[in-house]
């Protein structure tokens, strides 16, 4: 059972919406939200415990890096890697194809994330 979920999205409003929705489904889950890839990476390196137990829900196109770069940095810096779920507001098929093939990616969702999606995410993570 996932105890901590790390949200990374540079869209602040979506971050708030997402937090509220997740909170509705899992009241006791620890949620850490970040608006850049760097902030999230910093947090993970400062909290080794989170790195081992947390799962990550990350937007593909962040302002400072994309999710692929984020994964690269995470993998080179760590041996035990958290589960990663990608989300994007883009409707291009390129990202979904790549996500399906990437071994470090557990799931891929197109925004908006619905309540149905939130349930699916927890099925993947638990």
């Amino acid at each position: 059972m996932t105890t901590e979920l790390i949200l990374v999205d540079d869209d602040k409003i979506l971050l708030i919406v997402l937090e509220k929705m997740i909170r509705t489904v899992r009241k006791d889950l620890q949620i850490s939200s970040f608006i850049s890839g760097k902030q999230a990476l910093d947090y993970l390196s400062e909290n080794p415990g989170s790195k081992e137990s947390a799962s990550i829900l990350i937007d593909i196109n962040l302002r400072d890096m994309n999710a692929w770069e984020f994964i690269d940095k995470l993998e080179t810096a760590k041996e035990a890697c958290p589960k990663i779920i990608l989300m994007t507001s883009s409707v291009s098929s390129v990202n979904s194809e790549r996500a399906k093939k990437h071994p470090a990616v557990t799931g891929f969702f197109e925004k908006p994330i619905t309540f149905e999606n939130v349930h699916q995410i927890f099925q993947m993570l638990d």
Partner: protein
Amino acid sequence: MRKDEKPYSILIIEDNLGDYFLIEEYLAENILAPQLQRTETFQAAKKTIADSPAKFDIIFLDLSLPDLSGEQLIVEVLELAGGTPVVALTGFSDLEFSMKSMALGVSDYLLKDELTPTILYKTIIYSIQRKKFTEQIQRSEKRYSDLFQLSPLPMWVFELDTLRFLSVNRAAVNHYGYSEKEFLSMDLTDIRPSEEIGELKKSIEDAKKAHLSNLKKIFRHRKKSGELITVETTVNRLNFNGKEAVLVLVNDVTERNKYIETVEKQNQTFLEIAWIQSHVVRAPLARLLGLVNLLESEMPDKEPEINSLMGFIKDSAFELDEIIRDISKKSEIIEHLDDNDN
């Protein structure tokens, strides 16, 4: 011996009746039924040729007629003959001139004193046959000349050593603005922008070494007006009047290139717009859809009116979403087309 059965139509311009009879007799030895006509003067010959419904196969011409003789006679008769071979009949005293007459265009000359049936017959066969060959060659030369001159694309021949223009066609004159005379006083460097002269010299050196045939290259040329054009040239080595030369066919691709460039630019811009649609425009839309989803769950017991208004917002957002997806799909098809091209 079997006689030649072809009905040769022969005009004999000879004022001396004795000489004429001799020729008639000799002809009869080898030809079954020659169609002979005789005139005694140049004027009469002129009329006979003009009145004759068909061309003569051959004309025998005595070089001294009562009303005309010598070079002038030859020139005038040749003109009247219009391609029919003319054989000069002459005596020993005119031998030197007879030889000169060959240069004027007569097919052969016969010394009356040495005439035999065999020589006469041979001359007829030989002159007629040679005329045919000459005409064939002339036709073929004209065909090539027409191909060159009437080509809608500019063409020219330049000398490999000096780069001078040796021949240019009408399309080249029309396209570049130089007259034929101007072209023939110029060389290749005069139509190339100065910064490309080095490259030109180098490609000429390469051309001298290699056997080039149908080689296509892109160059820039300068018209007389100064306008620069982009051309695709096709070159072939040839021998032109004894000179090592190159035949060049020019295709002005300036407009075509401009057009392709414009299309490529438009395509690029279009792909950028498509990218903005599927990535940038969709982001706030996704946010809007997320907010609507959340609002619905946060306010489970809404008034019916609010409920239907929420439905309208949602419907509108989904409609916009469909449009963006549609555009995105179409742009992906175009990107795939591009990939296949490359």
